[in-house]
């Protein structure tokens, strides 16, 4: 194909997206569109899978059966979300094995929030309330993104996600209204998860390298800073409602903007964690790679069994 032909195809492609048409797997697409989607979608899938680890940590120690079944269901949903997203990504021509390989070798990233430890039961509340809350804000606009399989996967994910945030908030509310020790525990979890949750919405617009192109492809509808402001404005009143304090001395309502002003985010910390120097990066990867390697014999045995069954069937047919 000549360069001019490609440019003409690209122009038609951009027009289709501007008209709100969806792009489906077998349609022509620019190589950069394919690559960007593989990167973002697989990163999203990896985040769901690694995201199971900090919460899986508490399933066996949940304080009641009610909390245990809810947490178990939430973690199972995250496995499901990872699987929807992996199979949607495979429609772009990358194999599941390749994606796992990229995750396990550190070539692909996952959300850096999961590199923080979950050290008390209140962290299950904070993760559901804040981390899932921030994730929902990120994900809702993606239900309308231009790539059909991604948009469809996101609709399923968003439908299921709201219970995650509510169960987290309920945990926080119970603790905040409990004994002084329980309230301290809730406040401590909020103190530790607040800033990482703000960072989770991505670098500031000035430093975000992908924003403009992603806006055009509807991979992004709002900038990171707008999403962050939305998250803060919606979360501060919720904290007040249950009597917890947001750990930001500079946080205050701005009457003119009808929004909260907030303090400086420690971006050095964010980049350190992204680069692999967070408190749990090594631990998470070790758990993930370990699970994959230790499961190899199960996958092999299942395949051998399936082949044997197939052979038996064929023999019977003869």
């Amino acid at each position, binding site marked *: 194909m000549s360069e001019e032909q490609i440019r003409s195809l690209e122009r038609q492609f951009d027009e289709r997206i501007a008209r709100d048409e969806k792009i489906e797997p077998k349609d022509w697409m620019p190589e950069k569109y394919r690559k960007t989607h593989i990167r973002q979608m697989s990163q999203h899938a990896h985040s769901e899978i690694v995201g199971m680890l900090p919460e899986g940590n508490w399933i066996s120690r949940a304080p009641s059966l009610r909390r245990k079944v809810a947490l178990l269901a939430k973690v199972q949903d995250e496995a499901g979300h990872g699987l929807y997203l992996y*199979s949607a990504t495979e429609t772009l021509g990358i194999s599941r094995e390749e994606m796992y390989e990229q995750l396990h070798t550190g070539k692909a990233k996952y959300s850096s929030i999961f590199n923080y430890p979950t050290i008390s039961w209140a962290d299950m509340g904070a993760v559901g309330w804040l981390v899932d809350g921030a994730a929902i804000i990120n994900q809702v606009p993606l239900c309308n993104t231009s790539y059909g399989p991604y948009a469809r996967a996101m609709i399923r994910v968003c439908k299921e996600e709201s219970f995650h945030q509510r169960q987290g908030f309920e945990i926080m509310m119970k603790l905040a209204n409990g004994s002084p020790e329980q309230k301290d525990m809730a406040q401590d979890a909020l103190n530790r998860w607040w800033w990482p949750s703000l960072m989770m919405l991505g670098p500031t617009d000035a430093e975000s390298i992908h924003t403009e192109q992603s806006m055009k492809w509807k991979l992004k509808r709002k900038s990171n800073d707008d999403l962050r402001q939305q998250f803060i404005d919606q979360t501060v009143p919720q904290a007040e409602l249950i009597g917890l304090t947001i750990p930001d001395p500079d946080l205050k309502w701005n009457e003119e903007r009808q929004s909260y002003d907030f303090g400086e985010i420690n971006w050095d910390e964010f980049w350190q964690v992204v680069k692999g120097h967070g408190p749990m990066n090594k631990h998470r990867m070790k758990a993930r790679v370990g699970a994959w390697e230790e499961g190899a014999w199960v996958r092999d045995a299942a*395949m051998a069994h399936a082949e044997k*069954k197939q052979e038996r069937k064929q023999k019977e047919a003869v």
Partner: protein
Amino acid sequence: MKNWPLWEVFVRSKNGLEHRHCGSLHAADEDMALENARDVYTRRSEGVSIWVVKSSNITASNPDNNGELFEPAHDKVYRHPTFYELPDEVKHM
């Protein structure tokens, strides 16, 4: 080691409705594909029946050929009721 093949999953949400494609998954064989489909796609009573089909068994049309494949229908307007002129007195037909 051989990788588990890919399966397409179709779910009937309730009797009276058709099975609809809802996604795909990997599984060693058809029995495992059905069980995985239940866990992955019907955790909240989304279905009363599941079909799984090995993805490699699906033949798909190529969108590049949509012109030749679907165009002929465009000039056959006589297949639509509005092509036919009726007197105003005929209210419902």
